[in-house]
């Protein structure tokens, strides 16, 4: 895992369960909710934002590092668990950035407690069924194929080879399998969305929200963005041309600029 030395992992007790949180950077806290394959590591965008932000990345239970909490059966359970972590550590309201599954979790948490986040950045979030096309089913391919297909053009994405430290080690295979298994427990059916989410989200959120998407996203079709936008009044959508499911690495310079401006 490409993680800077300055990134520390802390184990925090949340109720009866442990939660390992990777902490890096300094400044105002920013909650980072990782994707369905796990935490891809410390990327260029992390480095850029870490100058002014203390980034807190909870490594979700069952995704390899934090032990599995057997009672967490769905994304809403996981969201409530993370909300408890924030409350008990006096971190709420906090700014959040969530990627794919992490974006869905952020949306569930916000629907459940609209005051928990002061600002939200949702990057190609799952959670809402796209009105056209389906969310690409990660369980129909091995992890490396899913990783490859998450970007529009893996060969011409400079940071692609750094995601998950290349993704090829036996340790990473094991970590991917942990992540896939836990994602299956959370989101097997319906796959990667919750039919009640748009209803619970609708009109409840006051926090400024930035939605970021790649126009060529093959994982979560961009048609879902309009539903998110409708549900979160005043939210702004940035859609990148020639970009897949990972704007943070495929369009990292523009991504950093937009997120920095938004969080400023």
């Amino acid at each position, binding site marked *: 895992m490409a993680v800077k030395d300055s990134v520390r992992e802390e184990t925090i007790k949340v109720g009866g369960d442990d939660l390992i949180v990777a902490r890096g950077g300094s400044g105002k806290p920013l909650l980072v909710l990782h994707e369905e394959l796990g935490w891809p590591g410390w990327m260029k965008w992390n480095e850029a934002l870490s100058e002014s932000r203390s980034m807190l990345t909870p490594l979700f239970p069952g995704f390899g590092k934090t032990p599995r909490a057997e009672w967490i059966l769905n994304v809403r359970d996981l969201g409530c668990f993370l909300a408890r972590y924030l409350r008990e550590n006096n971190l709420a309201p906090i700014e959040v950035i969530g990627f794919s599954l992490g974006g869905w979790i952020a949306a569930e948490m916000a629907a459940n407690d609209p005051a928990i986040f002061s600002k939200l950045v949702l990057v190609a979030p799952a959670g809402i069924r796209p009105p056209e096309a389906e969310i690409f089913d990660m369980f129909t*391919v091995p992890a490396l194929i899913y990783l490859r297909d998450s970007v529009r053009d893996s060969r011409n994405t400079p940071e692609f080879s750094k995601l998950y430290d290349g993704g090829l080690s036996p340790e990473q*295979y094991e970590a991917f*399998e942990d992540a896939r298994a836990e994602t299956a427990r959370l989101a097997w059916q319906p796959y990667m969305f919750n039919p009640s989410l748009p209803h619970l989200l609708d009109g409840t959120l006051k926090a400024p929200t930035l939605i970021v998407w790649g126009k060529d996203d093959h994982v979560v079709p961009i048609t879902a963005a309009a539903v998110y936008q409708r549900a979160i009044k005043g939210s702004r959508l940035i859609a990148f041309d020639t970009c897949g499911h990972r704007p943070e690495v495929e369009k990292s310079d523009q991504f950093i600029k937009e997120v920095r401006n938004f969080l400023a």
Partner: protein
Amino acid sequence: MHIMWFTERQYHYDPEVEPDRSLQLERQILRNRSFFGLPNQNFDPQTGSMLLNQYLDEKIYSEELGFDGLMLNEHHGTPFCLGSVMDVEAAVLAKATKRARIVLLGNPVPTVANALRLAEELAMIDLISGGRLVPGWVRGAGSEQLANNANPAYNREYFEEGVEFIVKAWTTPGPFRYEGKHFHFRFVNPWVVPLQKPHPPIWIPGLVSPDTVIWCAKKRYPYIALATRLEPTVELWNMYTDQAAREGYQAGPENFGYLQPVFVADNQARAEELGKRFLYGGAFAHFARPEWMFPPGYNSKEATRRMARLARDPNLPGKPIHEGGGHETDEELEAIRQSIYARYEDSKRDLQMIAGTPDYVIPRLNKVLEVLRPGIFSFWLDGPVGYQDRVRCLEMLSKHVVPALRETGKKLGLVDPFERKPGSVPLAAGRPAERVAQPDALASMPA
């Protein structure tokens, strides 16, 4: 000894009658790099209808020929097994046969959403057959989880809870309410319960999962190894025997079964020619893509770790399951085919396939029995082999091979689960268990 007859009921075209169709289907399987997920537009219902009836006829005839058990299994979405709902075939056999046990190895419990319905289906088969059902349970291959939309991450939990529930539904007076972790039934009161009491004998088939072996030993269920290699099978037998000792009983042949690919014909060359067809399309599940074999959470943590360390690249070759075929030319596929059939010599040497005349086959099967000492033994015949050849094989097995094996079984004391109840021989705490398998016999293989 309990001697059975098994086939996967492969969808095929007889290569001697329809060589082009047979080769075409095999190329499709190879191009797909998997039996699983082959587009069902390759299925011709006329052929399927004919084959299903032939396979049932064979099973009925094998009872006449003196086999003790008619073994069935179940797979989904694959041409190597037409039995996608094995209980339907079992119901036909329950009515059409009179004596043989109907052995289901096994029902994929985790993939059945309604375990109560399964309990009822099996109870009906037991009743119609007059108490001849031997139900078995499996977790289902990885592919079955996708084909049935069963969450693989809970596969073992579904399996263990489902089996507990079915036995409870059979044995606990109803009505009662059941609130488990995964299964919830507000009113359990199956009117139809099995004839055999307290419930039909349960056997468990498996490949090499230690978790399943230990679980069987705890439950005193016979474990049937599905054509696994002899050395690891011996290790599994020992594992079972040691666990049995911890449970306070001495395991014996009645706790073990073995499935053995065998082909018999009038001459050696013909038998081997037909035996080679076992490797058709890459030989069953052994030629499958990782997305089918290892769905998320299906393997234990230990198995995943082992695979991560041992496999050069466990992720490859992978591609989306909805993408059926590769783009290999016929010449490239022919090279793949030839490399697959070249493995025949290995499988012959390791006794993974025993094909020949009775004189060739009998000493080799005796060797398998000497090493593993199973109380249950099943012949396994598969591949694209025409009906006449299969029936001829069955007749020769029955006439020449089965009597010889019964003799060997008697000599070796291979009692089956109907002669001695599995788990019924107590073992005092602290006394060492006697090993059932005899690996020393491996030292002298028939020439």
